[in-house]
């Protein structure tokens, strides 16, 4: 620490004031707050765990998971290292990384982008097309595709970010729709239209092909998730990240401080787009192909649901939301295909056969009952407990 004044208790980064600070911030909108003064400091000393400990443990756990033969009945069909389970987990992890990249825009800068699917799809389609048309190996196609997707994000971001708010939402949505139409129209019979493209197995390293190598696919997806989340978390703690959070809180005020918000927003848009196109490549490899589903507006809306479900603008929220959503999406389909399901009355069967219906309604319910998402739950429970405790002695 090069600031002599800052005490040893000051947290290493700006993101987590709760770790060492003795001062808890007063509640934000205390509609039903006690009448007199802000509530006193509830400076409960938390356990002193280094900031990196939890993420590091998560990474180790992720890496070791394919070695486990632990059966998790009810949750997964087979043991943890069965190909089916690993494939599902790999998909979850790709979406975890993708949702985190979307949260960089939605949660951290407060930018309402409805076109994130475009950059994800760009990564996947560019890579698949480079392999199909130019017969480039995956190792060459992947960086080119990511570069292409990032460049596209830079260009379209430069145009879109000239406006803000709802207009930004509209223009990003429209750009993504143009991309979606392009893919479905199948110009020059290149994109495969509704059918999509499949991965050319001979251009992919052998280690990433076949059921026996599912663990490698899993590790690839895990690496992507760790990279995306790590990049977003790191950037959040830098001076640039601080400007981003400043923009979310009050963009005009940032401008009055002498910083032009535009390049900072464009930087975030480009980084998020780049991470999304990297995710697109990972998705292409993990699922062995790509279909136009990932280009649609619904797909971006799905990302929004994942982020809001987990908790926008938080460290773990997007990851948790994406994993939970993707897992439920797959498992609900399995349930619908199971034997007992046939015996249900048709009126129950029809809605339950559609995971998107269940997830959509679940999401609506969540917006009512758990605003702030899963990540906000511990704090909400804590606040409720504290409120109950405070009710004892009257406030002075």
């Amino acid at each position, binding site marked *: 620490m090069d600031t002599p004044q800052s005490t040893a208790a000051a947290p290493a980064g700006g993101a987590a004031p709760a770790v060492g600070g003795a001062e808890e911030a007063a509640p934000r909108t205390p509609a039903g707050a006690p009448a007199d003064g802000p509530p006193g400091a509830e400076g409960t000393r938390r356990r002193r765990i280094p900031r990196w400990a939890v993420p590091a443990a998560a990474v180790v756990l992720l890496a070791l998971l394919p070695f486990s033969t632990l059966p998790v009945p009810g949750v997964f069909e087979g043991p943890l290292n069965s190909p089916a389970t690993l494939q599902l987990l790999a998909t979850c992890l790709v979406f975890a990384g993708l949702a985190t990249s979307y949260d960089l825009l939605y949660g951290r800068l407060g930018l309402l982008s409805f076109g994130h699917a475009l950059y994800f799809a760009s990564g996947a389609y560019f890579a698949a097309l480079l392999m199909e048309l130019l017969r480039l190996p995956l190792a060459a196609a992947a960086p080119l595709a990511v570069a292409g997707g990032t460049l596209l994000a830079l260009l379209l971001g430069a145009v879109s970010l000239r406006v803000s*708010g709802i*207009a930004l*939402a*509209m223009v990003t949505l429209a750009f993504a729709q143009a991309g979606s139409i392009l893919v479905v129209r199948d110009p020059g019979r290149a994109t495969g239209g509704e059918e999509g493209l499949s991965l050319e197995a001979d251009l992919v390293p052998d280690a990433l092909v076949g059921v026996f190598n599912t663990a490698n696919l899993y590790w690839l997806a895990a690496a992507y998730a760790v990279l995306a989340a790590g990049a977003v978390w790191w950037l959040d703690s830098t001076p640039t990240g601080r400007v981003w959070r400043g923009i979310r809180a009050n963009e005009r005020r940032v401008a009055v401080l002498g910083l032009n918000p535009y390049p900072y927003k464009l930087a975030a848009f480009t980084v998020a787009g780049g991470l999304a196109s990297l995710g697109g490549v990972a998705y292409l490899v993990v699922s062995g192909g790509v279909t136009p589903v990932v280009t649609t507006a619904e797909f971006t809306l799905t990302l929004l649901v994942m982020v809001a479900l987990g908790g926008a603008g938080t460290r773990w929220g997007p990851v948790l939301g994406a994993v939970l959503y993707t897992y439920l999406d797959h498992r609900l389909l399995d349930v619908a295909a199971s034997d007992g399901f046939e015996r249900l009355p048709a009126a129950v069967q029809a*809605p339950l056969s559609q995971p*998107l*219906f269940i997830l959509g309604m679940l999401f609506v319910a969540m917006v009512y009952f758990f605003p702030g998402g899963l990540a906000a739950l511990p704090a909400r429970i804590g606040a409720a407990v504290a409120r109950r405790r405070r009710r004892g002695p009257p406030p002075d």
Partner: protein
Amino acid sequence: MSTVVLLLATGLGLGALYFLIASGLSLIFGLMDVLNFAHGAFLTVGGYAAWWASVHLPFAAGGGWGFLGAVAFGTAAGTAAAFLVELLAIRPLYGRHREQILVTVGLSLAVPALVQGIWGADPLTFPRPDIARGTVGVLGAAVPRDRLLLVAVAAAVLGGLLLFVRRTRYGLIVRAGVEDRAMVTALGIDVRKAFTLVFAIGGAAASLAGALGGLYFGVVTPTQGVSLLIFAFIVVVIGGTASITGCALASVAVAMIQQFANYYTVAGLGDIAVVAVLAAVLLTRQGGLTTRTAERVA
């Protein structure tokens, strides 16, 4: 020449559909600041309800006047859906625009999924009544009757909306509410009633578009609403939320650009041309929707 006339007629028909969807969106957004993603769901409800009525309800069957019954049933179902959504989903989140948007996003995913769960993902053939069959000769071109029907309905809706907004007390409340909701309540008026009404009107127009869209496309599918919705969004951005006439003009302009570009260049380029126009409009015009809403959301 006849090609141009045909394209104009088709463009007007599509523009009529866009108008039916966008007018409600624009009213809802202008008054309530809710970017209603569930609007596409009302369209789906309207389309499927009209189809269902034509198959199952005796008064709505047949090729003649029964069709009107089917459309009326579809519109009623969509209106009821919109009414319930506002009452049960939007109103409890009053003043929390971001959560309201999230709820409509959830509904926009759930409703088409439900429809797909019940009637399947495949397109269903929509009944075509006698009055919408065949063509009419206009300036040497054989214009399909259904296009003219759409235009006539949209024109009637435009007239009705203008009357509502300009002549009725609720129209007055809506126009005032678009400017300053808090002041409307401070005058002793329960502005939430106007919200529900506007949502129901928007739902009615959208479900009418759903029922008539079945006529235009010949089929109904669960996802028809979403793709039409995106172009309706574009119409709202270009036309602004200030006037219904502006919305009508923007609807026609977007549809025309799409039709002509699609015909005279490569199919699909028209859709992309519309996006390019949208980008150009947003970047050149600082006003209307762009500035007004910049501070409201996010």
